[in-house]
């Protein structure tokens, strides 16, 4: 069988796996954005001398975030199986894998948002306080726009990490490109599939990085 034929042979599988990966990463990214972004803002604004200064909240959130971040993903994957079953009614398939991917993406992204916010000139926040803006206005009109380039870069970083993690989720039946690579490439010694999936992943990561960089550049007015 020629190389071309074997690539054509796996195309349907590859296509399905690709869509599964996009699905898993997409859901986790949406959850990370929805929960991680506010969490990051909260982590930042509760620090000393800021609008919601609150040491207890800041320490507790920071502690919780660190805990999730210190658990290796493969262990988190297994540990969250009961939760996954509860939320999705199954422990296999891309939908199930999205649960643990989301859980690990939230604190990761929250920390990135926090550090992007830290880069903002404190004087700008002070000036907003001095004109009598409400905390909500400061977040919406100063903090988020000023941190936007950093947040977009963080989103790119999170997406690429999620693609890597989604391969691990594949090992316990999550599906996706990583799963394909392991099933065909590793268990069946099919180098063609292995290399094809790697090429697909490389292209995907390159495109995401390029788009992310461009978007971050476009919103940066500094």
């Amino acid at each position, binding site marked *: 069988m020629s190389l071309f034929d074997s690539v054509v042979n796996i195309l349907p599988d590859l296509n399905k796996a690709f869509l599964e990966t996009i699905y898993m990463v997409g859901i986790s990214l949406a959850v990370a954005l929805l929960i991680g972004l506010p969490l990051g803002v909260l982590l930042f604004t509760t620090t000393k001398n800021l609008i919601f200064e609150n040491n207890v909240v800041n320490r507790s959130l920071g502690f919780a975030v660190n805990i999730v971040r210190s658990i290796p993903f493969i262990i988190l994957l297994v540990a969250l199986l009961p939760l996954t079953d509860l939320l999705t009614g199954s422990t296999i398939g891309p939908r199930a894998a999205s649960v643990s991917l989301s859980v690990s993406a939230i604190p990761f992204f929250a920390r990135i948002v926090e550090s992007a916010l830290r880069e903002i000139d404190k*004087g700008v926040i002070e000036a907003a306080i001095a004109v*009598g803006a409400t905390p909500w206005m400061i977040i919406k009109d100063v903090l988020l726009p000023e941190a936007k380039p950093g947040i977009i870069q963080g989103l790119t970083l999170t997406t690429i990490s999620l693609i890597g993690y989604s391969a691990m989720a594949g090992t316990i039946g999550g599906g996706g490109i990583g799963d394909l690579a392991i099933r065909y490439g590793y268990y069946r010694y099919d180098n063609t599939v292995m290399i094809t999936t790697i090429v697909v992943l490389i292209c995907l990561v390159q495109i995401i990085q390029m788009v992310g960089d461009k978007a971050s550049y476009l919103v940066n*007015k500094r």
Partner: protein
Amino acid sequence: MIEIRSVRKDYISKNTRVVGVDNVSLTIQTGEVYGIVGYSGAGKSSLIRCLNLLERPTKGNIIIDGIDLTSLSGKELRKQRQKTGMIFQHFSLVSSKTVFENVAFALKAAHKSKGVIKSRVLELLDIVGLSDKKDVYPAQLSGGQKQRVGIARALANNPTVLLCDEATSALDPTTTKAILQLLKKISRELGITIVLITHEMEVVKELCHRVAVMQDGRVIEEGSVYEIFSQPKQQLTKQFISSVLDFELPSHLIEESKGTIIQIQFEGPTAGESILSDALQKYSVKGNILHGKIEYIQDVPLGILIIELIGEAAEVQSALEYITNRTSSVEVLKHVTV
């Protein structure tokens, strides 16, 4: 009127207590331009930041037009802050917003409608001379232009007080002059009370009516700008004044001179009179001007002249007395008679 009553501000870090502002009481009249000078670390920045509660005083009260800021709730304080504009040394503009949006932000904070915001922003940009830059981002502006945006933002909600935190310290001399002119115009035309802190006496001379000198968190001297310039009492004040009125003569000039060297200070109207030429005509003494300057502080002249008097001892003495009686101060730097 702004009343600062026994304000104290402590900073606590790692079990040590650092006093930023130490029991300062000042009264600033409505419409006045009030300067606070001091070296960095003197507490002037902490003090001005207490005036809109960016820093909450550890002790004491800040009362603006009868309202005690330290007693206000969050919402009331935000309302009060809209009536107190502030501009900053590093301008502190939102880099992701255009000039228009930066100014509009202040009006949005005051819950103004879109239509009102639009016309008011354009009006403000006209006042500060930036109408053509409304859609530009701060990064594309020069320092002076950024500060103009800062001023427009500070004036947005028709404040009664404008706080200037080293507003010209990051600008070059020419731009500084232009910004000071703008502040002068604002003070004159809008009648806003301006409180500014600076380490540049030039700024005080140019703009202020009254001035306080701060050292180690305390106000060590206070008075009208003319008083402070003409009769500084504290060593530190004299140091500050010397940056504007500096009369260092080269030492060899003093050594080589043949006559008596005196430094005369003229104040107010006497600066315009011809005391010196009268003295030289009256007595047979030659006068030789070595150094001199007349500064106009709030349009009142303050002159300092260093002259060498050459003549016979008795004549020099009489001329010296004549001048001493008619000017505010005469200091003999070197006494030599032929």
